[in-house]
């Protein structure tokens, strides 16, 4: 405990670094997954390529991906970008499928009605299809965020600072309080981020809580 109180400031600061390392890729991955998922939803051929490919990417061990990154994108060995790009790839691998599935699940009659009212393709996508996909997407983003928070720790092994660094350092110095503090901090971050995403997901989809009988006075 004295270790924690002595290093509290450092813990907070590294937690912040860890969050950026883990969540910036979620954000970027999400933005890239939307068009990719749309393509997979729109064209059968694209789907048969993209979905298995993303499944395959997801099976690559994270450490291996971190290590080969410099060779792939020309970064320095210790560059945090190696971890971020790798985590972005994992996010995309996860979310492309979510996006495609969510878009597939938009009811056909709603799409037909939107087309019949004269929505343009792009407008329909952003004001009808995408909002209706939010519940499924939120689930996907939560998995991606929690996964990335845990994977980001592994970056410590190749020297990219994160909460994982407390574990590597703790092992080197056989400093158990440091190791435990690192693990607890990672867990807390994951839980808090997951809860926040869940909350935001609920807040932006008020219609999902509106069902018949939930409001008084509904009559035929």
């Amino acid at each position: 405990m004295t270790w924690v109180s002595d290093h509290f400031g450092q813990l907070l600061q590294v937690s912040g670094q860890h969050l950026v390392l883990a969540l910036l890729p979620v954000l970027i991955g999400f933005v890239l997954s939307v068009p990719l998922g749309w393509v997979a939803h729109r064209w059968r051929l694209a789907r048969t390529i993209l979905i298995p490919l993303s499944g395959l990417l997801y099976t690559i061990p994270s450490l291996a991906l971190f290590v080969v990154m410099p060779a792939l994108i020309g970064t320095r060995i210790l560059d945090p970008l190696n971890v971020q790009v790798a985590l972005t790839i994992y996010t995309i691998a996860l979310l492309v499928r979510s996006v495609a599935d969510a878009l597939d699940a938009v009811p056909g009659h709603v799409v037909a009605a939107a087309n019949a009212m004269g929505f343009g393709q792009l407008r329909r996508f952003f004001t009808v299809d995408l909002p209706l996909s939010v519940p499924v997407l939120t689930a996907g983003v939560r998995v991606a965020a929690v996964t990335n928070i845990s994977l980001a720790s592994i970056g410590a092994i190749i020297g990219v600072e994160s909460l994982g660094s407390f574990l590597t350092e703790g092992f080197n110095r056989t400093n158990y309080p440091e190791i435990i503090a690192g693990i607890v901090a990672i867990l807390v971050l994951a839980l808090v981020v997951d809860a926040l995403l869940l909350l935001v997901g609920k807040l932006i989809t008020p219609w999902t809580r509106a069902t018949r009988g939930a409001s008084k006075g509904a009559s035929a």
Partner: protein
Amino acid sequence: MIEFRDVTKRYPDGTVAVDELSLSVEAGTITVFVGPSGCGKTTSLRMVNRMIEATSGQVLVDGQDVAKQKPAQLRRGIGYVIQQAGLFPHRTVLDNVATVPLLSGWSKAKARTRASELLELVGLPVEFGKRYPAQLSGGQQQRVGVARALAADPPILLMDEPFSAVDPVVREGLQDELLRLQAELDKTIVFVTHDIDEAIKLGEKVAVFRVGGKLAQYAEPAELLRAPADEFVSSFVGRDRGYRGLGFLSADGIAVEQLETVPVGAAVPTTNDWVLVVDGERKPVGWLRPGSSSTVDGTVTADGLEPGGSLYDVEGGNGTTGSLRSAMDAALSSPSGHGVAVDGSGAVVGRVSAESVLAALSKAREQAATA
């Protein structure tokens, strides 16, 4: 006006959904496309707003070939109502109705005001505007669908089985509502259904399709009942068509004879015919059997009467004359054999008999023959 000129739709898999369709839909009328499942009704309808492109032939709206118009532009001028209403689940009822005005560039405030007016027009309380579609019954959702289609006041309304997902009672209410709205709005409506009764009730003209996308007959509903073009149409129109055809013949000039009535509380009359018991406003209460004197003090009470049959409204309910069908039904369903004729307020004005309906029918036939 909407005109189909030799329109054919062949899907990529070779299915011919619509085969050389030629017909024109008069402006300001309700035209119904009816036929068995898969006969190409939806396909025909969707070629009007270009949700489906014709393989060959032309569809003209107000003389303009739709193929030469921008789909989005074209569609904003054509209201479309589909079976499950197709409401946006993530938008409130009010925002759903305001959709097309907003797409057409109206200000938010103006679009919402308009949307409230429309909710009222289709008979929904304005407070419903704040709800999400999932918080409405199926029938209410359909009304919202109709309101949304009407929001930008398009001259044309396409309706694809809009009432088929609701129960029969609600459906009838919605049909009546549509007729009332149409009397007020005077739109050009193309209405798709597979229910011939709905077609006959709503259509000023009815197009019967057969499987394979061929037009079997295009006629006024009375004509369809009286003279189906072929075996297919006649079997599709179904049983009782002679009887149902009476619904299109005015009972104008049918003899309304005098009917003996007695108010509740009066002395039981001495007669050996049926007597109709009426209330203080001369509205029918029930029938007194011939020779029935079961009442203790010799006065008529409302209990123990024979329930009456359907009523023949001489004013036809909305300012028109009643039909021969309602007169005939009144006569046939009355326990006494005397059909009870009432005026617009429901007060008894006399009786009609099956014989007088038949007499009126033969007179109408003679007139049709000499005309």
